[in-house]
């Protein structure tokens, strides 16, 4: 009878059972001390614990990526066409990269040793991140610090911006005025064009237009003459507005990265959104202009427009995946070269 009355009682508090407490504890320890404990406990209540026997799949390539998996015990291998690419153990997270890039699973996740896994719906995770913004900010900064100071080039904007520019030279038929004339001498882009440039920047691509419009308002312009050099000053996000710029980044271990960027490119990647990671020097290859968006402004906008955070996560996870694949390719190449030349491996 007690159970019946409890079930109809509805609201109220109750004792935690051991497994619920275990999940709470696990979630608190996973998320560390960067967030209020109440948030971790709420999340823990939404988690489901599952057991997978050796040989079972957590998911298969092509499955919808609508949940993420936290490995509590056991081992899970990520396979691509049957070949192991990486192995995951306790405290590792699976499925997040696919989910954040909004694509079906790109690999098979095969259990190698009997595994206890906590499953969390992606929507629950995202809601949690949105509600715990300081935690989200900390994660973004931490993840960004693991990326090299490079970025995929921005989308090709030459065609659409050329269209916009050409249109300015045409008379505005219905008003009788020259649209071009109303704009004055060309120096920089209109606000609408700024939006287009920012939208082409890889970490901002998935963001909403309202967030971009706020960033466009916060963005300060930095002009560079041809062959002019300048050190990028963290904490800022630099985006090429016009022209073409070469960046050379160095870290304190003596590594150097060089790349060339056109409009929409993120100079130094996310390597200058926090201080102390890289020294990045840029050189204009032609008269150029850059947007400089202060990191704190970026996070202010992100707090109000969560899709911007998702856009960052998608970008970071994509870059991290590309980096991991590079490393895997390099290690495979070195393994095959050492096989073909055993003496060199010794």
């Amino acid at each position, binding site marked *: 009878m007690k159970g019946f009355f409890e079930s109809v009682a509805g609201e109220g508090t109750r004792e935690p059972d051991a497994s619920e407490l275990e999940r709470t*504890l696990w979630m608190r320890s996973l998320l560390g001390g960067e967030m209020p404990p109440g948030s971790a406990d709420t999340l823990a209540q939404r988690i489901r614990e599952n057991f997978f026997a050796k040989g079972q799949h957590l998911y298969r390539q092509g499955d919808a990526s609508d949940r993420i998996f936290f490995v509590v015990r056991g081992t899970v291998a990520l396979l691509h066409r049957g070949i192991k690419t990486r192995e995951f153990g306790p405290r590792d997270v699976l499925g997040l990269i696919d989910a954040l890039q909004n694509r079906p699973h790109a690999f098979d996740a095969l259990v190698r040793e009997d595994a206890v896994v906590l499953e969390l719906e992606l929507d629950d995770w995202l809601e949690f991140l949105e509600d715990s913004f300081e935690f989200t900010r900390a994660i973004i900064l931490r993840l960004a610090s693991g990326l090299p100071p490079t970025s995929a080039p921005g989308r090709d904007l030459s065609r659409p*911006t050329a269209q916009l520019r050409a249109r300015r030279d045409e008379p505005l038929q219905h008003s009788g005025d020259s649209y071009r004339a109303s704009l004055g001498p060309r*120096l920089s882009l209109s*606000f609408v064009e700024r939006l287009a440039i920012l939208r082409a920047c890889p970490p901002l691509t998935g963001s909403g237009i309202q967030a971009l419009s706020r960033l466009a308002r916060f963005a300060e*312009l930095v002009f560079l003459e041809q062959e002019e050099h300048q050190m990028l000053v963290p904490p800022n996000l630099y985006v090429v507005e016009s022209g073409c710029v070469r960046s050379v980044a160095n870290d304190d271990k003596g590594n150097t990265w060089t790349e060339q960027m056109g409009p929409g490119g993120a100079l130094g990647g996310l390597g200058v959104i926090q201080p102390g990671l890289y020294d990045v020097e840029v050189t204009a290859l032609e008269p150029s202009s850059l947007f400089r968006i202060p990191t704190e402004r970026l996070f*202010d906008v992100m707090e109000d427009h969560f899709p911007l955070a998702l856009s960052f996560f998608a970008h970071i996870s994509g870059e991290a995946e590309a980096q991991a694949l590079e490393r895997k390719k390099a290690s495979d190449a070195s393994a095959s070269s050492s096989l073909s030349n055993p003496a060199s491996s010794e």
Partner: protein
Amino acid sequence: MAGACVVLGGIVGAHVLLETARDALFLTKLKPSALSLVYIAMAVLGFVTARADQMVSRVFGRKNALVLALMVASTGTLLFYTSTIGKAGAFALYLWAGVIGTLLTVQFWLTAAQRFTPGQGRRIYGLLSAGGVLGAVIGGVIGALLAQGLSVKSLLPASAAMHLLTALVVTFAPPATELAPAPEKAKVGAEIRAVRSNAYLARVGILIQLSGATLLIVDYLFKSVMATRLPPSDLGIYLARYYAIMNAVALIVQVFVTMQVLQRMGTILALTLLPLCLLLSGAAGLFFGTAMLAVLLAKGSDGALRFSLHRVSTELLFLPLSNEERTKAKPLFDSVLARGTQALIAVVILVLNQFHLASNNVLGTLIASLSLLWILVAWSLRAPYLERFRSTLGGQARARSFELLQLNLDSVVVLVEALSSPDENRVIGAMSLFHEGRRSNLIPALVLYHPSPRVLARALEVIPAPGRKDWVPLAERLLQHDDREVRLAAIRALGSSGYMDRIDPSAFSDMAGLRATAAFFVAGQSAVPRNETSVAEFLAEDADPQGQLALLEAISKLGTARWADVVLELQKRGRRELDRVLPLAMARTRDLRFVPLLIQRLAHREGRNEAREALAALGAPALEALRSALDDRTTDPAVRLHIPRAISRFGSHSAGEMLVHMLSQDLPGAVRYKALRGLGRVVSTSDFSVDAARILPVIEQNLVEYARIEMSLRILGERAGPTPLSGVLFFGLLADKRRQALERATRLLQLLHPREDLRRVYYALLSDEGSNRVAAAEILEVTSLGYGETLRSLLRVAAEPRQDLAPLESYASALSIPVPHEVDTLRELMANADPLVSALAASYAMELENSELASAIEAATSCNAWLIEHSNASMR
């Protein structure tokens, strides 16, 4: 759709003709008590026929099986017409009509379920039922005319002809894609087990049994009363007229009442109406002391509601089921359960007759009792019905929070085990859970040997307790620890527990932080700590910031109101290193002079969270100050933006009221959105409940915005050819705004239904997944019961399945406006109050080179030149 209506109309019309002839002939030739025997026989035969039908369906397909059954029905009925009908013939005809009627109805609804998606089903089932009831009216009218002009038997060829015509309609109907394959052969035992193991299906089964049983007794009572009260010669004409009138009433109910009732009351409440009417009929009979009236009212309710409202709401119970579940359960319910119940009730009536107990009173009591049970079972379906839709969305009702104060033995074992984990986060988590559960005394002092400085610092915070001394020697040892934070924590632990004599301040004279912490305890007894020499050292302009930080940390953890002046002094130094700890120290010392300072701090990310906590700790005066700051138009917009969340931290009724008020105030959209989020927090963490009358207009406002944007996007999206860049940005902005309007509307609804997980409904509405949208629609239907019809129709439009996109007319109708054209839409958007919408609309409109838009473009560009034109003037 129209074809399906005609087919159902044909089936039901033919059945009404057959049923009228059957009842009249049976009651003329046999005593009403024989009805119980025919019910039993019908149950057995119905069961056999249903199994045969499943086999035929598997072999020939649903459509062909339906055609075959209609042809057989026509031929068989015609054979009865050509035969002489005596007692045996009347018995056989009753059986025939009952079996054929059930078979054809089941076949039709299974075919419909295979051809329509669940989303279509919700809208279409009502219309299909209307087709059926219309057929019944036509059948009833023909029956009455034929019975009057010719004979009751002449209804049989009319029924046969109607069956034949219906078969022709089905045969020549265009082939439609069947959404689900024909059912696999399954054993009855396995089907029953499957239903019993499914709580929802089991309840639906019980409901169907109860309704079947009750209506069968009503039918028996009606026929027996008719047979005893009317002369046999009038029976045919009377029954034909009665059925015709009842069917006409049913048509009126179906057309004017069913959908209204379903929309206003929801599926579950609608299910209780028929049994309620039966109960009321009995009550009316008792009140007026006439069985005839009770029977006529009861049968009238049956006739008016069974094939309209009751049928549609029962069919809707199958909507949340998977196709597999539905295909298994429905034939089982319609054959085994329905027939089993029929047989059981028939046996009961037979036994009652045998012992002369089948009086009107006994049967009336039986009907009343079963109706009551029926209502209870229907009501008990409410939760599982919604739960089925919730599980489609992958969610459940919000869980209750658990109470850490009541750690049981199993939980304590889990936590003690966690204390020995090599993972420092796990150990810290376990200690915190012990601390929150006020069981810090269970944390062994040996944790202070842990290698992790973080674990040590946390342990030194939670272990010291009055009367406990085992940790003191270990804490003394930690005064020499390499890590500064551990040393500080050790001083604080010892100092706060009265062991300052164990600390030698001279030992760390070169370490400002440690000295400052020691100074805190040395000056702790002073009435004015600010005047103490040991403290004054750290208040100087050129004092070491590490010392100031340590002093503030000590105040934030252990300080009292006497330290407020020290905090104020340190605040004036304006050192960034202190930003995070200052609000905590202000919260601890609880001095109202800090309120304006804390409000100003909301503008800065560093320390904002702590400032919110501090304001909440300062209570009502701080809340009032926040309200004034929000109302003051000169307040820094960056501060204003963060006031709602600061208010939400108070978690009080007054805080909730303030946030509700903000929702309808003339404030920037971002501030109102934050008020909404803050209100969500207050509602979910306290017992504050929101007044629906204040929230519903805001929900409606957001849904109107959603519908308007959706309409605009659809109208603008109809243009062929590639979208220019400005169009991509413009449409992207509209899509953002559409999503936000929907999010706000669902968050507002969530405030009114804190136990419902409407966040999943929101995600379902954003998705293209048909079953998710149907589930979301049903949950919204139930949660919005009792709200205004405009709001509910807007919710329905928002939840429309993507594949059956609601026509623009339905948006326009929900908004009570005509459908606009592309030019009007663009004009309206260019005149939008949001400059970004206006500017992007104008940029896009320029690309269209439409002279009709010229003046609107000029107006928009002149208002928003800064957005559209080059922003070169201020550059460089």
